């Protein structure tokens, strides 16, 4: 008898926004400490969690901080005493707490954060852009994007499972596109408590747990005598995380059904594809429709939806994208002044592909900034340029902007 037959897996199907789905998952993860500070579009998560507590459905400490900096410090400290902790933010809120975010990683503590992606002010914009979360990409964080409300819910469990693993212990940023995903209402399957318990073991910080009976020093002044070795430990943890992620999805699939055949990214119509687009988050929606339309016209195109950004799935993506002639990277972010003035994702993808003897031609599209939508027509154009690039017709400017008034 498989595990799936022994316990009831799904409790109910419920209409939930992306934010609400995350909140229900936080509840099911039996979180101990929640620190909150409002900023759109994350705010609905804290609203929902406070309601779950008020309704007596969740027993957790709920602390409203005076700012994001304190909010993140609170969960970091809670995590150090062995509490499963949760916080979240968006855009500039994320930046305001940056110092606390960095030390959570260097202290090797594993709380989970929801980032409702939002453009960085100024000027004011509520819409999605990925620079907020991506600013942490080199700091020792786990970072992954959900592209549906269901995925967001499930990745709270997967996120804690990976982050808290003895061999990882890194903070986890679960990101989702502001408005397009955080505020979209879907029928979401909510699992039972028992099935989540089966998947997600209790958080155990072991010897490192800060407690009066177990005095430990966290973050002392160590200077040049220790820092390098500690950084190396971070580095190793990020390397190990790839294996743990794989294992976590195997366990997840065993309990909840084969939901993810590849943990790191999902491929859409890529079999026999000549050129593909790759992107992160909600842009998967118009690109998939565009892909279908291109296929109807006989064009061999596909889409790769990247889920895990840290650790970056180097081997898997190298193997996947190495099959194609043209790769068009869509960045909902910017990296001003970087090589070719391309987007962050493009640099990662290009660097990942560089060691291949035969590389696809990589071009880059920057679009959807500040919450502007990326239309199906734009995606079709991106497919056309990527197909052309794959056939050797590489534009002089490798990076182009889409959806810009120009």
């Amino acid at each position, binding site marked *: 008898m498989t595990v799936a037959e022994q316990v009831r897996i799904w409790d109910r199907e419920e209409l939930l926004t992306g934010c609400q789905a995350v909140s229900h998952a936080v509840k099911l993860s039996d979180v101990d400490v929640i620190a909150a500070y409002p900023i759109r579009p994350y705010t609905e998560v804290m609203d929902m969690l406070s309601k779950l507590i008020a309704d007596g459905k969740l027993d957790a400490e709920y602390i409203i901080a005076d700012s994001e900096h304190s909010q993140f410090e609170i969960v970091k400290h809670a995590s150090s005493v062995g509490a499963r902790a949760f916080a979240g933010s968006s855009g500039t809120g994320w930046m305001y707490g940056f110092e606390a975010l960095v030390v959570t990683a260097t202290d090797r503590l594993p709380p989970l954060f929801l980032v409702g992606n939002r453009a960085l002010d100024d000027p004011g914009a509520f819409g999605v852009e990925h620079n907020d979360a991506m600013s942490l990409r080199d700091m020792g964080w786990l970072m992954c994007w959900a592209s549906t409300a269901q995925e967001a819910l499930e990745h709270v469990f997967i996120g804690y499972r990976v982050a808290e693993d003895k061999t990882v212990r890194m903070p986890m940023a679960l990101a989702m596109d502001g408005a*397009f995903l955080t505020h979209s209402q879907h029928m979401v399957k909510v699992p039972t408590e028992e099935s989540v318990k089966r998947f997600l073991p209790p958080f155990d910080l072991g010897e490192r747990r800060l407690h009066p009976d177990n005095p430990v020093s966290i973050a002392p002044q160590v200077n040049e005598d220790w820092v390098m070795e500690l950084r190396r430990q971070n580095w190793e943890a990020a390397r190990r995380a790839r294996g743990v992620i794989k294992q976590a999805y195997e366990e997840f699939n065993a309990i909840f059904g084969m939901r993810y055949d590849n943990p790191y990214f999902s491929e859409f119509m890529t079999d026999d594809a000549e050129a593909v687009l790759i992107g992160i988050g909600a842009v998967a929606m118009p690109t998939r429709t565009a892909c279908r339309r291109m296929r109807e016209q006989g064009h061999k195109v596909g889409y790769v939806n990247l889920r895990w950004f840290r650790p970056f799935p180097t081997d898997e993506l190298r193997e996947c994208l190495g099959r194609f002639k043209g790769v068009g990277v869509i960045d909902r972010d910017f990296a001003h002044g970087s090589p070719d003035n391309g987007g962050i994702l493009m640099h990662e993808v290009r660097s990942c592909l560089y060691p291949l003897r035969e590389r696809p031609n990589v071009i880059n599209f920057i679009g959807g900034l500040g919450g502007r939508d990326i239309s199906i027509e734009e995606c079709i154009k991106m497919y056309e340029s990527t197909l052309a690039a794959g056939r050797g017709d590489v534009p002089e400017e490798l990076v182009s902007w889409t959806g810009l008034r120009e």
Partner: protein
Amino acid sequence: MIKRVEVQYRGIFQKNLGKYIGGDIVMIASRMGRVAFSNGRYSDAPERNGIPCKYFAFVSPDLSEEELEAECGAKLDIDAADVSLVVDDTMSKGVEPWGWHGIRPVNEKVGHKGCLLMVTRREHDDLVRFMAKKDYPYRLARLEGDASLAGLWVDKDDLTRERCLGAVAAVDPDVIGIEAVEEYLREKTGDENRVRAAREAYDATLRKNKVVSAGEGIDWPHEIPVLPKWHEFDEGGVVVPAVERGFQLGPRGQNRNEGFKHGTSKTERPVVRFDLCIKCTLCWADCPDECFDPTDDELYDVNYEVCTGCHKCAEVCPVKECIVMVDELQFENTDSPWEHHKKDPAGYIQWAEGKKGTKRIRYPHVTGTGVEISEGTTVPPKA
């Protein structure tokens, strides 16, 4: 096949109503074996005051969830609506949801043979006279009722939600069917009154459904702004032309942001009897949107293009019957009332009293506790 429904609602006063109707459609369609999801035009912002906003629901009988999402998700607006449900008829004068969008026709997205479904007490022609011409026919269905306006984030729960669901089923059964609406409400609430409200609205809406022919309506008077290209404005992050502020008392004071007038936020406008004014400055000082322009004769003209209809001026004015809030659909334009008064003082009084009518409506501070309607008095012109 995809059915696209938009719910046009008034900012914070109907936020929950809009969201609930969107969500209900998803749940009812799901019970019917259809695939559906819902999202909002502006997520939870910037729904200030009565600013016109939108929720969407997408329903398909044959696509997978993945396909429906791929077609309809991650978009700010739709190209064409099968049903555009408008939960307050004063939006028929136009909707300006956000800066730089301009004032747009309420029927802008109604597709060919689509349906504009409006909660209203007005007749067909009385609504069409405010709405833009379209070059194809569409249906205008009316659901008899008042706009259900509640306070910040609150839902009045006055059966508008249930009635709207019944009406949507009447105008497009491919979105949701009335039996499924009834079953859903019965199961969810166990309250037969709610089920009956939906059914009655369904029956009534079937009867109040008329075609608006191509070319019927007005030539749209508002320009839709064309925004500059990236290289056509100054660098430095200040992309919005700055608005000079002026706070001196007259003459003809304030400057305003031309890019966002937000006058379509209002359901009522203040009508001022200039002859009764004692020049106390309170309306001018208290108006949150700086709508009053001091005049040379020390009166305060109202700029209806920017007035959001918040009632504040009517509340602070110390003179009885001097400022009274009047239903916005009584007015054709945003012309200066003070100029009218200057040109023809007696005629203006007569016009103003005609608009005011005899009923004075007082809204309670606590939502849902009912409105107070009293008889107004017609104060004779002051010498």
